[in-house]
């Protein structure tokens, strides 16, 4: 199984550099970058502990060429006490390869660009709008792609570190979908009436020592009377970051990672649910892989606690 974890598609480099075998200390980056896979495999066979000093660079720059497994990285860090399992993903712009999950065309076909009518427009959503076609607001999908990428990346990192994610949506049409999606990725959902002190008065309402969510994801930021959901303000009060799908009639001011997009059409909401589920599952799988990798290559050290 570990062989499967470390399987790599090796880039085509010049033949000379293939001489870099386990006994050779790592030199220039070119040799490193192509030989790592072979090196690590060779290490198990020869039973040598990982003595790889320099960092392997730029394998991720080639995006889709490489296998879905985590890249084998040296786990001993330069800084003592640093937990590489936690810090290493932060150095890559797209560690979980989330840009593969969706494209602008997918968003267009799921009708994410359709907003409400001109009269319902919120003043603060104007920067996110592409234009207005016969009084219907059209959301700028170029911005949506970028912001969705950022939001999914943040969600993945939170899930990677074992954070508690809460999905909130007050749309009764999608209540079942959101709840089943949350159950499928092992996280939590709240799609019913929000009692006043759920976050701000949690120790009284739930008992002492309750753990609050580390991220709240809103599939729709409005409640049933078209006012902003109380949880957005409460999450800002309790210093909990929020990710929210904002339609053209929503207020984007307190949402940490806004995603301008349609929150009314079923196909759009199904797309969001699918993307969040895949992101969180990917992140949790990678965490398990990294734990195994760290545990194997470094059997003496303790298990990293998230």
């Amino acid at each position, binding site marked *: 199984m570990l062989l499967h974890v470390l399987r790599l598609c090796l880039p085509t480099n010049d033949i000379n550099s293939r001489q870099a075998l386990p006994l050779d200390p790592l030199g220039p980056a070119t040799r490193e970058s192509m030989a790592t896979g072979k090196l690590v495999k060779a290490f198990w066979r020869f039973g040598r502990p990982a003595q790889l000093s320099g960092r392997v660079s730029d394998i991720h720059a080639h995006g889709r060429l490489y296998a879905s497994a985590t890249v084998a990285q040296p786990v001993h860090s330069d800084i003592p006490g640093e937990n590489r399992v*936690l*810090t290493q993903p*932060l*150095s890559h712009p797209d560690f979980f390869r989330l840009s593969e999950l969706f494209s602008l065309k997918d968003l267009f*076909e799921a009708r994410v660009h359709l907003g409400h009518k001109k009269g319902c*427009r919120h*003043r*603060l959503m*104007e*920067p996110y*709008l*592409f*234009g*207005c*076609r016969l009084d219907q*607001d*059209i959301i700028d999908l170029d911005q949506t792609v*970028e*912001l969705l990428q*950022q939001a999914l*990346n*943040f969600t993945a*990192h*939170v899930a990677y*570190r*074992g*954070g508690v994610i809460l999905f909130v949506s007050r749309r009764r049409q999608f209540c079942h979908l959101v709840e089943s999606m949350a159950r499928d990725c092992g996280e939590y959902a709240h799609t019913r009436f929000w009692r006043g002190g759920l976050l*701000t008065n949690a120790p009284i309402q739930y008992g002492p020592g309750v753990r609050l969510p*580390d*991220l709240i994801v809103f599939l729709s930021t409005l409640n049933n009377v078209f006012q902003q959901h109380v949880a957005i*303000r409460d999450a*800002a*009060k*309790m*210093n*909990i*970051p*929020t990710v929210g799908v904002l339609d053209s009639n929503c*207020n984007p*001011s*307190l*949402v*940490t*990672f*806004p995603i301008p997009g349609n929150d009314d059409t079923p196909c759009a909401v199904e797309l969001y649910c699918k993307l969040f589920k895949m992101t969180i599952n990917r992140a949790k799988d990678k965490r398990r892989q990294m734990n195994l990798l760290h545990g194997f290559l470094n059997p003496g050290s303790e298990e990293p606690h*998230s």
Partner: protein
Amino acid sequence: MAGSRLEKFGTIFTRMGDLIRGGVVKAKDVPVWYDIYAAFPPKKDPLYVKPMAKRYGKVTVTVPEIFYKEDAVRAKFYAVYGTGPRAFELSKSNFISTCQRFVEKYSELERQGEVPEEALFEETGRALLAEGVMLRRRGGPSVSGKVAPENRDPVLGMRLKDMLSELQTDTAGKAQAEGEQVQGESTGTPH
């Protein structure tokens, strides 16, 4: 557990950063998201924006209207023919409606350049007819909304009072005629 509930001042990141810097939040209590936020901050800081009911000064339009050159042709099509003969099938993403076919044919003829500007519209209609698309005119744009007086249906000009008075004169006339007839007969018979 220390916290700062002032959502209207700064962002969650700045407030948490200040708590950590001030030593109120210990290293073991730093939330999960703090390092992630530091590595991947959002494009725009999630600051609280006060809701302003009224906009002062000149309102600059930042959301442009989306119009295409073909919209002129579409408007004319809908004015002349109303909604096309075929209903829109919205479930198909590659669906081409009658209006869209018309517009495509129009732009094709325009590009070819053989037909003069004024006759383009008629020419497109004829071309589509040749292809088998039946277009029924709703009311031509060249004719003004009203029909010429001499072509109006005379029934439209009639009023109820006139109809009743006509009816009365008819019945009176008939009665008179009958009366005369009867009298005529009666005067005739004693002969």
